[in-house]
């Protein structure tokens, strides 16, 4: 999909460099492409040596792929971050309030703000969670909110990832790498630090321990060394100084969770789990799960252990629920949303459906429960035939689809084969909710390395950049 008009993060009208990029722009001008290529090669070698990779396990073990790292930072001003941070805080608080409400009073449904069917009929809704008290009413302890910029001060939330959002280890490693490769840049720019993230995460986890556990034991739970995000699980456990456990390391007795240690059983109070609801407990969810712990949900419901994120929170990050998030902010907080939603048409609504059908060539149409770009129509680049085929599918099953206008993502200078050129980016900040809501300034910037591409996913050749929030 070719987007000709887009917001350039570094250059404004007439190619004028924006003030917050002035230093980096000078630095770029002074650097030969040979040196840049050398630095990039150095970064790749280091990432490989540290094993900061995505596991691609096939025939032979140790086959691992790097996520391309781009050496040109993405910069956010203090002013922009102030707005983003307030917006993120507000949004995540509203989402937590919503999940709590759904599993308790359901006042938002009773008030008719969201159709009951969209919520209670949702695949991510977990009836097991009805009436369950969770510590501090927090469900989405770690949220990775995907944000794109369309224009000056114009940020849109694309997606709220509330299940097991990943990528934070790349945010931290990208920063370490930049400081190692180009320490001089950090002397001339006041970049807000991010490396205290593991501390904040540990504090957040400890703050949601079951009542009475004064010195709680926190663990990170992984599906295992063959999971593609295993590096991140191990990284976070190590940085927090807690055990990295698999399901087989845990067992439940008298509704209490223990881990098997060389000194006998040890009680576990908080589990930062990086494994989906479905696999958590074979007694309740998928019976064939070898990754989970029998009896875990019972211990959880009894309040003897905290799971982060909570079971059933995925409800709020579903595409069919997304359009209602601004309404949640108004309903629960009595505030106007700070961050924009991308306008979304729900085809289940007859009026919106007719608008969608009339404007298919301009819209992106997505399956409500689809992921990874499957079952998707990108109007501006689709052929007439494809559009007509999609029209028939949407008409037949309108409940299954939503539609959005095609957004033009902002672009940031990136070092590619042809030299330095703008490439489209997004931003995933990580919001932590425990007793308090907190976050480190910035997030993970993903970049679509192919010219014109809007797909930033690492599975589709996307890369990452160090993300700077400048201090005022």
């Amino acid at each position, binding site marked *: 999909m070719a987007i000709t008009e887009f917001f350039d993060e570094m250059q404004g009208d007439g190619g004028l460099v924006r003030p917050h990029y002035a230093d980096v722009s000078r630095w770029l001008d002074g650097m030969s492409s040979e040196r840049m290529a050398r630095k990039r090669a150095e970064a790749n070698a280091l990432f490989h040596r540290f*094993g900061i990779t995505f596991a691609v396990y096939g025939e032979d073990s*140790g086959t691992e792929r790097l996520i391309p790292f781009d050496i040109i930072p993405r910069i956010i001003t203090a002013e922009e971050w102030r707005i983003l941070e307030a917006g993120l805080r507000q949004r995540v608080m509203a989402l937590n309030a919503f999940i709590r409400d759904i599993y308790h009073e359901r006042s938002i449904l009773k008030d008719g703000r969201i159709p009951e069917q969209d919520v209670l009929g949702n695949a991510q809704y977990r009836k097991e969670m009805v009436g369950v008290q969770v510590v501090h009413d927090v469900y989405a302890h770690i949220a990775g909110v995907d944000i794109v910029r369309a224009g000056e001060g114009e940020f849109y939330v694309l997606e709220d990832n509330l299940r097991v959002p990943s990528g934070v280890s790349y945010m931290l490693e990208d920063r370490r790498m930049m400081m190692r490769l180009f320490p001089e840049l950090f002397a001339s720019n006041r970049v807000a630090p991010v490396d205290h993230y593991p501390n904040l995460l540990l504090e957040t986890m400890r703050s949601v321990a079951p009542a009475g556990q004064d010195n709680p034991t926190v663990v990170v739970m992984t599906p295992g060394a063959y999971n593609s995000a295993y590096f991140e699980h*191990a990284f976070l456990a190590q940085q927090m100084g807690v*055990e990295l456990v698999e399901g087989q*390391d845990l067992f439940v007795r008298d509704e209490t969770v223990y881990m*098997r240690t*060389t000194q006998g059983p040890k009680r576990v109070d908080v589990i930062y789990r990086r494994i989906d609801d479905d696999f958590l407990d074979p007694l309740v969810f998928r019976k064939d799960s070898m990754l989970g712990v029998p009896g875990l949900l019972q211990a959880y419901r009894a309040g003897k252990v905290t799971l982060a994120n909570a079971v059933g929170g995925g409800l709020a990050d579903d595409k069919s629920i997304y359009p209602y998030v601004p309404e949640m902010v108004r309903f629960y907080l009595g505030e106007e949303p700070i961050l924009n939603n991308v306008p979304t048409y729900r085809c289940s609504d007859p009026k919106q459906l007719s608008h969608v059908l009339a404007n298919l060539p301009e819209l992106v149409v997505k399956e409500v429960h689809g992921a990874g770009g499957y079952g998707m129509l990108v109007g501006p680049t689709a052929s007439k035939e494809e559009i007509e085929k999609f029209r028939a599918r949407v008409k037949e099953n309108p409940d299954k689809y939503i539609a959005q206008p095609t957004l033009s993502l902002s672009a940031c200078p990136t070092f590619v084969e042809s030299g330095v050129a703008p490439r489209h980016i997004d931003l995933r900040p990580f919001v932590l909710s425990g007793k308090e809501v907190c976050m480190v300034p910035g997030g993970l910037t993903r970049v679509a390395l192919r010219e014109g591409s809007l797909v930033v996913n690492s599975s589709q050749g996307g890369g990452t950049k160090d993300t700077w929030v400048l201090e005022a």
Partner: protein
Amino acid sequence: MLSRTADHLFWMARYMERAENTARMLDVGYRMSLMPQTATEVEQNWVGLLRIMSLEEQYRATCGEVDGDKVIRFMIFDPENPSSIRNCLRAARENAHAVRDTLTAELWETTNATWIKVRGLTPEILDDRGVGEFFEWVKYRSHLSRGVTIGTMLQDDSWRFIRLGTFLERADNTARILDVKYQVLVSEDGGEAADYYRWSALLHSVSAFEVYRKVYRDLISPVRVADLLILNQDMPRSLARCMREVYANLQVVANDRSGETMRRAGELEASLRFGRIDHLLDQGLHSFLDRFMDRIYDLGNRISDDFLIPLRAS
């Protein structure tokens, strides 16, 4: 610490040590095969090596006739051979990968880098570079990971399970080398010169040649070789030293189930500490070593049951 973590660390260390010992044995076998001797002698030399590893049967099933080049390839590359250097280094790396959060960055990088290097190795590259260089490399990678372990890891229970793995494996390997070589050497009736080379090769295989000279300042005699490799407390690859390390580390990690394991380890350790070589030789070296290997095997199983894979919940 987590039992599973301890298990991975224990096996990471065992496999690294095993890779090193396999390289040592192959290196000596290779060097001995270069000495002037009959074809039967050469073959006996390789058969002995396969027996040390309890792999003769498997080798004959896959490769047929015993032949130096084939044995070397079998012991370096064969995917079905659990003790092949490639498989050991892979297993060491897999175990490290499973617990990389408990390893220091240096230790993980060392183990990972070793595997990445050996993964790319082919028989053609090996022919080109020479096997001797490769064996040397494996030994040095093992030295490196041990050094990185000692130099960077916190000396807590993680470290102790690594040490347990290293010394239990080493005790087993030294016993094997001694058992097979000793039988071949004492039964043969070669000239003095040939004997000298064979005994010195055995010492070289456990890096004990210079040590022997220093300790005894005398000619190489079978009894002293046995004494050095079994009872000498200061010799880092001797059975006595290995057992001392095993026992000491077990004492620190002890839990409420490990009493019997401790007792058995202590008994074995004491028998070596207070043992006399003439008594051992009187009861027959082979039967002594045989029993020793059984007891090492038993200890390995007991450590697993007590610490590493507790089957019961408590």
